[in-house]
């Protein structure tokens, strides 16, 4: 029997978000992919999901979901679970889907595995890969026959095209209860920013005195932007007046713990390390092979930061395209 994998597709401004499509592609590889789309734009989006792997789409075009997705979505999906028995609900880890997964699993007594980077369903059942604590990889499974939930790590999969596939569409016939509308959105404020805040950024690209002069700092900013990260600095160049104090990372500046930290032209004084040592991956570019920063780097590049940074930006743009 083919496995049926459900994916709850999130909408943003009337279009499906990328992370949902990535997971939908993975679901289609695992078996029969079925999508659930909720919200006022759902009817328009549903027909387009076939191309991304969905064979069937459950649609409920109700504006109540646009307010605050969690509670109404949990109610509706739970109802669907009562009628159907998919193998799995597969979700990318996002702000809302995380909340939804937690409640769904409790309401329906489902098993739940988070932070998966990969999963397979074979004869011996479900196998989920969960990297854990930097040095370990766990393979886990769900112990119940009932459907379970797997939350995947952001960017674990890429969007796939299933050209020519059209999805069967089923409208869900339900009304959302009042209990599921107890959370009210008063206002939504878009904060225009040139990127994430330094402390929250998953990627930080930092520059030090090795950049030579203030004008070269824009190579750092450019790379940070391409990687969706934030630019940071050592105290040395903050002192030199290249940047304001808010950029300073270290003992007496900000502490950051991003997934990726790129240090360009930074010697690696302990006062600087104190602010970024907890980063998951550290890449250092320094022309001095004895620079202390290399002792803390996962990848150390002995070379000229001023020429490598722009090359790297170009290279990443090329690979992303």
């Amino acid at each position: 029997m083919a496995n049926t994998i459900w994916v709850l597709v999130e909408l943003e401004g009337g279009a499906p978000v990328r992370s949902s499509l990535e997971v939908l592609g993975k679901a289609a590889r695992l078996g029969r992919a079925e999508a659930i789309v909720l919200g006022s734009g759902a009817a328009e989006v549903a027909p387009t999901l076939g191309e991304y792997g969905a064979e069937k789409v459950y649609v409920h075009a109700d504006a109540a979901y646009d307010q605050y997705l969690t509670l109404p979505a949990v109610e509706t999906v739970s109802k669907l679970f009562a009628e159907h028995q998919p193998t799995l609900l597969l979700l990318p880890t996002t702000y809302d889907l995380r909340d939804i997964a937690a409640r769904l699993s409790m309401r329906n007594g489902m098993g739940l595995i988070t932070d998966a980077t990969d999963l397979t369903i074979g004869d011996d059942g479900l196998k989920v890969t969960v990297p854990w604590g930097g040095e370990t990889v766990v393979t886990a499974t769900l112990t119940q026959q009932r459907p379970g939930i797997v939350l995947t790590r952001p960017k674990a999969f890429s969007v796939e095209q299933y050209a020519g596939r059209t999805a069967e569409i089923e409208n869900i016939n339900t009304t959302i209860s009042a209990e599921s509308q107890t959370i009210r959105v008063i206002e939504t404020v878009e904060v225009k920013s040139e990127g994430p805040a330094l402390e929250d950024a998953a990627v930080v690209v930092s520059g030090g005195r090795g950049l030579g002069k203030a004008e070269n700092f824009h190579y750092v900013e450019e790379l940070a932007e391409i990687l969706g990260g934030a630019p940071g600095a050592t105290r040395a160049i903050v002192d030199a007046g290249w940047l304001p104090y808010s950029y300073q990372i270290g003992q007496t500046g900000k502490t950051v713990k991003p997934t990726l930290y790129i240090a360009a032209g930074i010697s690696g004084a302990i006062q600087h390390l104190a602010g970024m040592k907890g980063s998951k991956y550290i890449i250092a570019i320094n022309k001095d092979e004895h620079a202390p920063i290399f002792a803390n780097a996962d990848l150390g590049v002995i070379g000229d930061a001023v020429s490598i940074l722009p090359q790297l930006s170009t290279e990443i743009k090329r690979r992303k395209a």
Partner: protein
Amino acid sequence: MLLFLAALILFGIRAGQLVTLLTKARPEDRTDHINDRIGAFFKVVLGQSGVLRDPIPGIAHFFTFWGFILIQFGLLNLILGAFNGSLPFLGDNRIFAIILDIFVVLVTFSLIVFAIRRGIVRPRQLNSALHGPWDGFIILGLILLVILTLALVEGFEYAASNGAAWTPIGAFLHPLLGRASQQTNIIAYRSFWWLHMITVLGFLIYLPRSKHLHLMATPFNVFFRSYKPKGALPLIENLEEREDYGVSKVEQFTWKQLLDGYACTECGRCNTVCPALNTGKPLYPKEIILGAKEALFVRSGEILGKDSIYNKLGIAGIKADKTPAEKEAHHEPMIGGIISKEALWACTTCMACVEICPVSIEHVPKIVDMRRSLVMEESEFPQEVTSLFNNIERNGNPWEISNDKRAEWAAGLEIPLLAENPEAEVLYWVGCMGSFDRRNQQVATSVAKVLKAANVDFAILGPEETCTGDPARRIGNEYLWQMQAMQNIETLNGYGFNTKPETAKAEDASTENAEKTEAARAVEKLGTGTLTKHRTIITACPHCFNTIKNEYPQLGGDYEVIHHTVFIDNLMEAEKLKLTTGFDKRKLTYHDPCYVGRYNDSYDEPRRVLTVINDKGVTEMGRNRNKSFCCGGGGGRVWMEEKVGQRINQTRVNEALGTEAEVLAAGCPFCITMFEDGIKGVEAEEKMKVEDISEIIARAIEKPVTN
């Protein structure tokens, strides 16, 4: 007669009030070292050695001081004269009259010097935020009036007595006073006599409220000054049981700390040397002292209490506030009001202020006491410090590094751990900087090299060593310091380093179910023969050095601790370390670390070492030895951002650059960090290098080339 009595009573009340206030403060024993105290009294009070360090105002002060004392005798003589009596020996003694008059002239000149300083030169340190310049001028005016009236009294007395009452000034003035009738002369004599008396009495009454309170307080302050190690901050006892931690209200200072306020002459010398103030920080050490005094006066009514005689008389409250507006103006509470928090956090605890103060005022313990209140009572401190506290508590070092890695720097250097060589003669206390900071690991390596070259039997503690707690204590976290100190003391005593094992044992027994450390057990197995051996702890970190040597005894850890520069000097003296003299050809200058120099008076040893090794000797910076200008890192400042004014480290680096030396020799991991950073900041990397003395020596050992 009545006038005298009234004046004396008023003076008595005012002085009594001040003394009573002191009795309401915290107790503190200052009766140790009694002989030294008497000696110091002679030297500093009578000999004026403190003020004389600053020659021009110093000499003027010397004359005014002695002139004033003599005038008191003159005064007595005058009073007795009015009753036809005279002082024994002095009364009709012409020599006394001559000396007195010489001083009258000298005092007059001194007053002119003071007036010029105050009115025309106006050195910044004389300013006070707490009161206008008038106080100083009133005093000068009063003294002048005393002198003038005395001169006139003498003049008219001479005239009235037809030269019988000879005094040099009288004789000199006589012709100038004209040929008035005998009657007029007597009346004038009487009037000026009264004027002189009234001025002196007025002075007496004004005194307790003015800066010239120091006239009365200084002798006591000098007498009661501290004879404890300069570098030891006072212990807070019974941390677990008390209600308050540090000082937030002025009466929580000890009486001696408050006496400091009375004794302050407002000379502002402390301001002139303060590295924080001189780089634009809002810290005026003088205002800390005067601020505490002001706060004391403002709260005096409350402190004296309702039942005090002063309150009953309705005269308590030297500066009592009556309205909220007045309270506002007087900045209650003390911290954050009259004394700003920014000022407290700006202090590097460099001790320059204490060193220079002519009247032995102790600024640093006060500043730290107030920090203690902020940290332990309010949890208020620069935000950067939170991670420092947490890391010291959890990891035993200031960073997010596991303490297990403490000996990693020594990998491959064949340095035994004390656990492997528990009988080692010398323990090299590496400290957190030497253990974990890459730059200072190089220093640690050099120290080890030097010790090996001198065949010293030494070991390190490795993971058994944990942060001494010094930064925590200076920042005000006494609790954390005590926890760290107790842990280290247990380890060190366990290995038998205590020089007073009996006291340590007593302590041990008193601490209930004190768990034995690995170390203690190891030593137990090996027997305690080690205790009889002469064992020393050396360290390259002056902050570790100071706290282990001077502060651990407060918790039962007495050790022989030597700073590595001094130890190297000893090794050379004993010819255990033979070096090519003049090996180093570079021009170098030396920075005295505050905690080696001012805290522990080691100025010569490092210089001796450098002079042997360098054929040019040490090119001194303008501010050297006990006037050394802090690197900016002490007092926990190295863990905080320096956001206001110029950088202290750059200021010092510029001074070093002024000597045109190529090497700035240092003896402290924080100085090294601060200066290397400062050199980058002023872009002088090509011109100057910072090196620890041990690094210079290690190089000489490695390459004992001929000259």
